[in-house]
């Protein structure tokens, strides 16, 4: 810190030299800087050095507790699909959701993660919200069939994990989906 202060003081002196006639500058410690009368603008020195952020890599002070999550593999239930920009459960999705609910009623320890996805025709943040809303709509339907909420977790992938990469309505429809992934209590993938 002292070195920096000294450097700063030195700079102030430089400014004093470079400044206008009869102008005085008081240095931070109260010392009066020398005066100079100048006819013409003397060059002011400036160091073109990059800010510190361009140099070092940051240290991470806090590690993040990692909750183990199963890989999103297609499960026995397949996927349910959604309309463009919508997160309401469609009629054609209800049989699948009922099948998931029935299976969960029989397999009392099973937990499921519902992953919500979008097509690419949205902005990143809004698509993440939309994906989450789709997953939660599907979850709420399963809960209404009698499964407790804590056995159902949701996650949104937005537009980041498309099943299909062409720019066609067929493809976009495949991507607007919720997928089901089994999760056992240890966090490892089931079956």
């Amino acid at each position, binding site marked *: 810190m002292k070195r920096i202060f000294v450097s700063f003081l030195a700079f102030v002196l430089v400014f004093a030299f470079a400044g206008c006639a009869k102008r005085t500058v008081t240095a931070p410690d109260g010392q009066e800087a020398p005066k100079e009368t100048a006819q013409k603008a003397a060059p002011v020195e400036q160091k073109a050095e990059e800010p510190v952020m361009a140099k070092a890599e*940051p240290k991470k002070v806090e590690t993040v507790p990692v909750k183990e999550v199963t890989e999103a593999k297609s499960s026995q239930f397949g996927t349910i699909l959604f309309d463009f920009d919508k997160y309401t459960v469609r009629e054609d999705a209800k049989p699948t959701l009922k099948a998931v609910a029935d299976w969960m009623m029989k397999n009392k320890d099973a937990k499921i993660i519902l992953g919500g996805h979008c097509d690419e*025709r949205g902005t990143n943040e809004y698509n993440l*919200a939309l994906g989450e809303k789709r997953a939660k709509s599907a979850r709420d339907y399963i809960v209404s069939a009698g499964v407790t909420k804590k056995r159902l977790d949701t996650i949104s992938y937005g537009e980041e994990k498309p099943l299909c990469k062409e720019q066609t309505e067929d493809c976009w429809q495949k991507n607007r989906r919720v997928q089901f992934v089994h999760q056992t209590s240890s966090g490892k993938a089931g079956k």
Partner: protein
Amino acid sequence: MKKGVRCQVSGVSKKLFTVFLLFTIHFSFLTCEAKIYIDITSPAIKKLPIAIQEFSGTEGKQIADIIREDLEFTGFFLSIDRAAYLEKSSETFNPKNWTVIGAEAVIKGTVRGEQNLTAIVSLYDTSEGREVLRKEYKGTKASIRYLGHTIAGDIYQHITGEKGIFRTKVAFVAEDEGKKGLYLMDWDGTAIKRLGIKGDFVLRPHWSQDGSRMVYSSERGGQWGIYLLDFTKMTEKKVFASRGLNITGNFSPDGDEIMFSSSQDETYGLYNLRISDSKLTRITSARWIEISPAVSPDGKLVAFVSDRGGTPQIYIMNRSGYDTRRVTFEGSYNTSPSWSPDNKKIVFVGRVSGKHQIFIISPDGSALNQITDKGNNEDPSFSPDGRFIIFSSDRNGGSGIYMMRANGESQKKITPPWLRAFGPRWSPN
């Protein structure tokens, strides 16, 4: 004149460095009776014809070229072709050599040294026939672009009276070894650097107004968290995490608060987090989607996205969640609001014929203006001087980072073709 005075620029002294800049500017103006040559606040601007001569000495041409590119990009300068110059670099400035070719301002310079460079640069006013600015710069060959940008910034400031953006940086998100990572680059797309911060997802970062910190959202190990990166200590800290989706907006002007959206308790809500004492305040609660809060630079209003009316639209409210009013009415999809530095405009993304375009609107809903029309364009935000907009676009294939003037002119890609990049944010200084 003392020469060779050095300042060790370390993390702590960055603020002093800023102070130093203020001092140099102060004194340059005093000495030279600053005069504004171009009134860039005027709606009709006549470009200033300027001659930028190759500097003599090491990398003199490169430095002069950087200055020329910088000044030309602003749209306020007309750079005169060097082939027309009558005066050699080594010759003393003579205004007659320049007025005949139409130059109103001339930049000349010399560079000494091989690795450690010392440049002495002069700006001349041809009508008055005198030197109006002279400064000496020290830099290294390795960071020659930064040296050029520094010189261009001083010249721009002298001529326009505004600080300019030539020394700013851009933070953005790009692919990083199969994950998403944060990157920094100079505003012109050079000096790209990975910050080493990665996640399965990382969303666009937001700078604090003093440029010392960034806040961003990242999904790591199945959980969405909000992280704070402090450049002065080069440390990252998690400031919020929970179940559900947590996506941060920007800092309050004083840098002590951030606004973010969270679905932690089943409903969506916009929250305010005071960083110093971790005080969390819930501002809104919604059964629908409410995300992307953007605090205005004066700290009074928040722009955000809500689909309360059936489609995503931009709304504004005051900081405590009252006086909510809808801003966008055109189209069925309007997201990603960001404020201009003077609080008078909001830039956002709107959908037109299935594609995302960038628009500007006044907070009262008037003066809607579409400023892009190619490909899909996302994540727009203003430069710190409000004269440019940075955004991502897929117009040439994979997503890259582009910038343009705030009126939509001079759109250009600044990231290289091999980097899939998005979510850019301009540093405030």
